[in-house]
């Protein structure tokens, strides 16, 4: 970024570039190992290390084990209160989903950009990644719903206690609101992360360009406030990273509740 003539290019950070295996292809599709793949692997590595240190089953847990049990207990509580006893089966899925999104969001915020040649990459800032996560959630809802209730699952589109003559309006509305779920799920995470990273990059561009400006008054007047704003926005982005992971897991559990308990 901040390439020639101080032009800010906030979209460059989202570019997926092959790191090696540039000409690996399967049936004409490139399967090169990209920076996106690398950061996904780093995410999995971070989760693996986190879980490895905490899955000790000590009777008196250490700090690390308390941290891991805090997260698993958090997800288990959420599933219990939203779905009930039948929700225990889905705890591993929702836990993996929550941890992957949370750690990917947080790793993308790491300030590695100060090391030349190293760029953190936010995996969740791509609609393809969040879209796959949302489609997996939606597919599990469909499979569970049809497996448990058969074609009775379609009663999801018929609200309880509504008069029969309202059905021609209510059923299409319910159907659309059901079908739009994977899109809203994917779009929310993708846009929240993209917007935050664009904002941070634009502010970083202000700092750099202010320092490089010829007029002396620009640096204290533009760069300094931008730097403080960046610190604040970074804290906000940490909050957003956690909230978005929580919202994704929460909505998944609510949709699973529809599939398991039918309203």
């Amino acid at each position: 970024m901040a390439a020639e003539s101080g032009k800010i290019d906030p979209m460059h950070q989202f570019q997926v570039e092959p790191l090696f295996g540039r000409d690996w292809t399967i049936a004409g599709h490139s399967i090169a190992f990209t920076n996106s793949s690398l950061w996904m692997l780093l995410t999995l590595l971070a989760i693996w290390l986190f879980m490895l240190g905490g899955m000790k089953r000590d009777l008196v847990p250490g700090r690390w084990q308390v941290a891991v049990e805090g997260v698993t207990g958090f997800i288990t509580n959420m599933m219990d209160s939203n779905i009930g006893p039948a929700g225990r089966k889905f705890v591993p899925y929702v836990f993996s989903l929550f941890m992957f999104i949370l750690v990917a969001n947080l790793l993308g915020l790491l300030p590695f950009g100060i090391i030349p040649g190293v760029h953190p990459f936010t995996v969740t800032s791509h609609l393809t990644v969040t879209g796959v996560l949302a489609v997996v959630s939606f597919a599990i809802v469909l499979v569970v719903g049809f497996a448990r209730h058969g074609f009775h699952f379609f009663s999801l589109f018929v609200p309880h206690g509504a008069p029969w003559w309202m059905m021609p309006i209510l059923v299409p509305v319910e159907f659309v609101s059901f079908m739009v779920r994977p899109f809203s799920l994917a779009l929310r995470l993708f846009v929240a992360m993209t917007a935050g990273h664009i904002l941070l990059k634009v502010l970083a561009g202000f700092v750099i360009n202010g320092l490089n400006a010829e007029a002396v008054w620009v640096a204290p007047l533009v760069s300094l406030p931008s730097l403080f704003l960046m610190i604040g926005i970074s804290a906000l982005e940490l909050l957003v990273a956690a909230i978005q992971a929580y919202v994704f897991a929460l909505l998944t559990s609510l949709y699973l509740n529809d599939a398991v308990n039918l309203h």
Partner: protein
Amino acid sequence: MDAEAAKFLGAGLAAVGIGLAALGVGNVFGSFLEAALRNPAAADSQQGRLFIGFAAAELLGLLAFVVAVILLFVA
């Protein structure tokens, strides 16, 4: 007015929607806090609903952002 200028104007107008979503998100948390202070015992059990409301209000603001970005970079 040429098409390029209209594009930028449209993106700017779409940004108004983000401000309106800010009103919505503020309303969600403000109402929650107001109610939680009246009955703090019931506040924790409603946290899930708080975040559902937050997610719904936020999504509409993010859609405004998507419209702005599509106008600037895609259209």
